[in-house]
């Protein structure tokens, strides 16, 4: 993956950013638990997930947030372009113990290009057609 991203001159309010689909499996969650230090049992134990009323193991909300940040900074090229980033954890990503796991689809839209190169982007983050993150929006400084 190249670090070369979109140029400010090529960005206009209303632009759609190409959607991406990310596969999330139990292995993904185990890796994220280790990397983040969040070992909450609902992210790896089917038994414990059921005990608290969940249908199955769910992804860390912060993992889904990290995926959407990855989507944003891949578009921007430089991760340091991100100035502000907000999400609401609306619905969990349920991850069955299958080879396919779950699919998270992320798309974005440029809502405003301000003087000085600040660009506001709204994200749509869904799983099985339902929004898992809402109020997912970011401000990036592009050049």
């Amino acid at each position, binding site marked *: *993956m190249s*670090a070369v991203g979109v140029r400010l001159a090529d960005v206009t309010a209303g632009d759609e950013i190409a959607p991406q689909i*990310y596969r999330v499996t139990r292995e*993904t969650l185990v*890796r*994220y638990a*280790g*990397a*983040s*230090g*969040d070992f909450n049992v609902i992210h790896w134990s089917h038994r414990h997930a059921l005990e608290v009323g969940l249908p199955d193991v769910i992804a860390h*909300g*912060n*993992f889904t*947030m*990290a*995926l959407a*940040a*990855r989507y*944003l*900074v*891949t578009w921007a090229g*430089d*991760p*340091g372009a*991100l*100035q*502000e*980033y*907000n*999400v*609401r*954890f609306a619905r969990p990503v349920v991850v069955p113990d299958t080879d396919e796991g779950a699919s998270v689809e992320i798309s974005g839209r440029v809502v405003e290009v301000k003087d000085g190169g600040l660009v506001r982007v709204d994200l749509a983050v869904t799983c099985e057609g339902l929004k898992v993150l809402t*109020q997912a929006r970011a401000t990036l400084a592009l050049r």
Partner: protein
Amino acid sequence: MALDTGFIGRRYPPTVPYEVSRAKIAEFADAIGDDNPVYRDVAAAAALGYSDVIAPPTFANIVTLEAAYAVVHDPALGLDWTRVVHGDQRFVYERPLRAGDEITVVVTVESIKTLAGNDMIVLRGDVDTVQGERTVTSYTLLVARAAESVDA
């Protein structure tokens, strides 16, 4: 039970310094499947003007969540942490975290509200280097859902 709004503005002591390492950054980038070389290759980071490899934007969660949990478990605050869910998360960036940074988090109770029996508390986490440079500010909304008796 409504939380004591007297806690608004309360500031907790800084966390023990955490050293951001190249290995941990690479591990985190692997875990989120991001193969951007600025997370692994000093030369690629230098090409974008960074003095060392930088961390993905939500890397700060490693330190801010732990700091927030320490506050959630403060018995004086009286939050029923068994009913707490992470509602919203916002980051405001000054610069990316990078390998070699030694960072601490100071958590401040930004706001407390009770809405339909749900306690809502916003914790601000100032993530500063030990030299006092602000890197990122985290705003974490935690929601303690109303006990079932309140819903009835």
